């Protein structure tokens, strides 16, 4: 059929373009990976070559063997914290996004825009009052400070609202006619249709929390190393003026592996959760 031929031609062009771009894209990461396997002498001699002349695991071993830097523990901590945050966040914002997009009440959109606007001030300003608050609540230094305050974040809310707005209103109306109340519509119609949006929001929430650096750093300033998150811990391994390139690159590669795995898993589910609209 003509349509299929056209589609195949497009697929092939797309393949070639994506291949070229992906190779370009990957080169810097390959460099980082290669550096993490080079001996220090190799790094000094050929700092920019993509192919290690030597091969060593010393940097990775260095990461795992140092007693003052429990890297596996940090990864576990980050997983627990980012995971808890993501689940809680999704619950909170899916309700709110539903209200801001499907429900009708006075000033609905204006309130949303006000909320969005207040987050446009750079968050570095909020540090002092937030620290005071976590001290007053007794959370300072504990994981609660890394989970609860972020639950007011607006990015996921914005994202879900946009997706919910794309749901055809006829579906909502027919559900109302069928006698469903708001909660029923939320649970039985909106959520199932939005699996991909929820997973996208989950991905970004997880990543954002995982990579958060300055806030956990401050919270952990008096806390035992075993409670730290991965980015905070890894930042303490590299020296400032006597930089260990191999070690730092090994740390960087290590830090991204869990998140890339989470991403790969979620991406598949995002595609599976694609909404097929159709009025029954």
């Amino acid at each position, binding site marked *: 059929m003509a349509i299929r031929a056209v589609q195949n031609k497009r697929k092939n062009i797309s393949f070639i373009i994506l*291949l070229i771009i992906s190779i370009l894209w990957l080169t810097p*990461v390959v460099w980082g990976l290669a550096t993490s396997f080079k001996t220090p002498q190799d790094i000094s001699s050929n700092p920019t070559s993509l192919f290690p002349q030597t091969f060593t695991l010393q940097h990775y071993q260095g990461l795992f063997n140092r007693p003052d830097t429990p890297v596996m523990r940090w990864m576990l901590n980050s997983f627990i914290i980012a995971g808890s945050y993501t689940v809680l966040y999704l619950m909170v914002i899916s309700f709110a996004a539903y209200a801001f997009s499907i429900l009708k009440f006075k000033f609905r959109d204006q309130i949303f825009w006000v909320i969005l606007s207040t987050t446009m*001030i750079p968050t570095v300003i909020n540090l002092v009052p937030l620290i005071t608050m976590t001290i007053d609540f007794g959370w300072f230094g504990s994981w609660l400070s890394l989970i609860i305050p972020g639950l007011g974040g607006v990015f996921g809310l914005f994202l879900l609202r946009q997706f919910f707005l794309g749901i055809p209103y006829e579906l909502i109306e027919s559900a109302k006619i069928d006698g469903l109340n708001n909660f029923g519509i939320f649970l039985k119609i909106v959520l199932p249709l939005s699996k991909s949006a929820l997973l996208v929001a989950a991905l970004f929430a997880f990543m954002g929390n995982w990579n958060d650096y300055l806030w956990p750093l401050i919270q952990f300033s008096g806390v035992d190393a075993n409670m730290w998150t991965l980015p905070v811990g890894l930042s303490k391994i590299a020296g400032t003026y006597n930089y260990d390139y191999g070690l730092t690159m090994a740390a960087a590669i290590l830090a991204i592996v869990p998140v890339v795995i989470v991403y790969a898993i979620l991406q598949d589910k995002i595609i599976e959760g694609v909404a097929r609209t159709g009025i029954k």
Partner: protein
Amino acid sequence: MQISLDMKRRRMKRIVKEHASAYAFLLPYLVLFSVFFIFPFIYGLVISLFNWNLFFPEETRFIGFDNFRRIWFESDGIYYRYFWSGLKNTLIFVIFSVPFLVMIPLILAALIDMEPKGYKVFRTILFMPTVLSISSVILIWKWQFYTNGGFINALLLKLGLNEIPFLVSQPWAWISIIVVTIWWTMGTNMVILGAGLKNIDRSLYEAASIDGANYIQTFRYITMPSLAPQMLIVMITTVLASFGVYGQPDLLTNGGPDFSTTVLMMRIRPLALGTNANPGIATAMAVSMGILMVVISIVQAKIIKRRGDA
């Protein structure tokens, strides 16, 4: 008479119930948002009205809008200089980076949406840099941009061209920063747009194909309008993120050459947290930048909404 009163009462009850329902859905988020965003936000606004002493809060004095006056108008002062030069550099970055940061992910997402062979692998590769931390990104890229042995310049030399001092001269310094930013951050938009593309009904494409529309036409009249909700969030969040750029100019070019890449956040941060902090000024700068961002976002939203309705 009696009937319409009943109807009115029932309507009011419905409206109240609708509102109560809405508030029930909103309550958890609003509570968290108020405590952890609104309160610090107002606190921040208040700080901007004070000569705030970070180390000794007792010595703080109320000065009204003096901080704003100084950064906006006091042309022989250092804060005026920092604010306006910082803002100018930030705007340069926003204007030149945002189009790429929206267009490139859009094109890539569209290509991936065709699901060619291995598209899952491509998708992961293109997204991977987004997961890296800023310090890893800078470490990787700095060595690519160096002269005397940097990867890109070594390539240029092999091709018989001259070396380019990417990090120490303009316009290369900006180009370097923008290239790194695209590589690092476009993955986010790619995922959002990709998910939006997947939500578009395939039958629309088939119908267009039957009608004889080519790819560009299909893209313009079917894909883009359906993508409007995602485009809105992508445009707005990208502009906001570009306004807040900090790590790349700070670590890649140290704000140089000659402070030409010293963006506003690089001025705000040390004033907020550093050893010679002036939180009142820092907050005034941040609030000013925030007001600008709000205005730009509202304008964007209106434009996109109009396009989406078309």
